[in-house]
């Protein structure tokens, strides 16, 4: 029933989709791995990245690729400020129930940012100029250059972040804090510093994803909600806090969306995520590569 060219196009679409999901989900994973908290405002930082990209290009008229580092740097600043102002009490003071505090405070932040964008930037759908205005044709399959370049840039960003974590002093100390907080502190690493860097990096990944996807999708105040839901699915599927798990899970979810969307129905694409999430929680609660926590 499936022709070979349809299969090929679904595969390619799936790979492109999974790179985009991996980029959004990687930020959530880094923040969870370090601080054991879920940043519910991730989607709104993603949305801000889209607006930064749009307005920067509107005002300067530069090449979109030049604007990407600007979005990334803005994301670093936003993330660092949020961590400093709101998240720091969860690990510096002996706050009871720090996790729930963080959930409510980041949820409040996400509402604030959504409505801030709604009244600050308006509810119109906006679209920045094309990233690479060509159409690539391979056999019977044609893809817009935007989608291809977005996925390439996503792959480049993911590899850069992995290199940062594996090869630099800051990245290694982040890894140490994620593995064992007390051990890292005894080795002279300040968790306040690594957490700030990690949160900023997560937010930077969110803004760069928002800026990249702004070219393919549209920019509007609620555009971060659905990508970040997919990212949450990916993160749970891969195991909370595991970077390897996140990358593999985003591949699985991207393929599932591509094939289920084409074969079953495209309208329900965002519900497949919930179904996958629930199946994973039934079969393997800690996710593919997560560590089994003590449960009650």
């Amino acid at each position: 029933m499936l022709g070979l060219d349809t299969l090929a196009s679904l595969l390619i679409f799936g790979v492109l989709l999974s790179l985009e999901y991996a980029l959004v989900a990687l930020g959530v994973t880094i923040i969870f791995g370090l601080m054991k908290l879920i940043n519910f405002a991730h989607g709104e930082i993603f949305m801000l990245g889209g607006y930064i990209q749009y307005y920067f290009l509107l005002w300067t008229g530069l090449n979109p690729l030049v604007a990407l580092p600007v979005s990334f740097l803005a994301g670093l600043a936003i993330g660092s400020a949020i961590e400093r102002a709101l998240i720091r009490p969860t690990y510096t003071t002996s706050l009871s129930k720090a996790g729930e505090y963080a959930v409510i405070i980041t949820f409040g932040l996400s509402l604030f940012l959504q409505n801030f964008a709604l009244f600050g930037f308006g509810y119109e759908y906006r679209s920045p100029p094309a990233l690479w205005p060509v159409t690539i044709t391979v056999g019977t399959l044609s893809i817009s250059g935007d989608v291809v370049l977005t996925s390439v840039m996503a792959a480049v960003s993911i590899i850069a972040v992995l290199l940062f974590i594996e090869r630099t002093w800051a990245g290694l100390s982040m890894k140490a804090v994620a593995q064992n907080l007390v051990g890292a502190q005894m080795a002279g690493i300040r968790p306040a510093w690594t957490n700030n860097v990690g949160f900023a990096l997560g937010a930077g990944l969110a803004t760069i994803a928002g800026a990249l996807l702004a070219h393919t999708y549209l920019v509007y105040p609620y555009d971060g909600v659905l990508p970040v839901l997919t990212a949450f699915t990916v993160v749970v599927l891969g195991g909370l806090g595991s970077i390897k798990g996140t990358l593999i899970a985003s591949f699985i979810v991207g393929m599932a969306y591509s094939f289920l969307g084409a074969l079953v129905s495209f309208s329900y694409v965002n519900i497949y995520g919930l179904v996958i999430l629930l199946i994973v929680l039934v079969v393997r609660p800690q996710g593919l590569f997560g560590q089994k926590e003590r449960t009650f």
Partner: protein
Amino acid sequence: LNLTKAFLFVLGAVVLIYLDFAPVEYLTFAVVLCYYLLLAVGWNIVGGVTYLASFAQAAFATLAAYISAMFVTYTGSVVPVGMAVGIIAVIAISYGLGYITLRMGGAYLALATIAFSESVRVWLTVNESLTGGAAGYFPAPLIPGGTPAEYCYLFVGVTITSIYFTYRLLKSKRGVLMKAVGNDEEAASALGVNVRAIRLFAFTLSGLFAAIGGVLFAHYLQVIVPADGSLMEQATIMAGPIVGGLGTIFGPVIGTLIIIGARDIIRTYLGPYDVLFFGIIMIVSMKFARNGIVGMLTSPRVRSFGRRVLSRTGEPFRKRTSATNEFERRSEFTQQKGN
């Protein structure tokens, strides 16, 4: 019958009699307030007492409303039967969702409920042939030709019963176990509390409250839209207990009263900035007043200030207990001995 109970009784009687003469706007406001009170008190059981961040309260209410309304339309049964079906279905759904997600820590429940509520909203919007899509669905009225006062009596009655039930629950053994789980799940588990069962109970109970509120409000308003289950609504529900004081019984009531009142004032005089305001108020109260209004009123500093005012001497007023008497008697005794 002590003085507080007598006062509450008289106050209740006066309010109930007043409802018959009150202007329609007040009655509508009271019904809306009762709907949010039901949802907020239910959310407070899971979010405040057992301290689990659940985002599915608005989605449960909307789901119950849709199930009830569609059951009535498609089977032609009377409205109360549809309401019962909606409530039972949502209890089953919340039990199942809790059963799956509560095996892991609280972060998983937060993620799963946020995905659940968005999925419900998307499913209700996409499935236009069945649910009417974003334009909404129109349930049958609960009381055909009912006046606002009749609905108001019903809502006030159900809400007060629910609040009283929660009050009794928190005083009961199960309520104490729930508080223990919320304070420190490891300590509770070490003392032999079945943490997972208690959490599941609290989550299912919050689903029950949401379902009751949802079906009543749907058949009162006679229009439901998928956006009723959005995260914005969830924020409105959560803001009340957070502002009033999580885990207390009067905190969510006071907080919801303030939040719903403020929402009406903001929407009337400023514009649609209510959710923006709720986001800010959530952050501010979680950061600076984690125990809300009730926590502020019962904090040692405020209490000692109140006692100082009451004793009129500027000295902190000490409550005399048998221990105080005993201490003074003994110190007199030692002084005598020294002489």
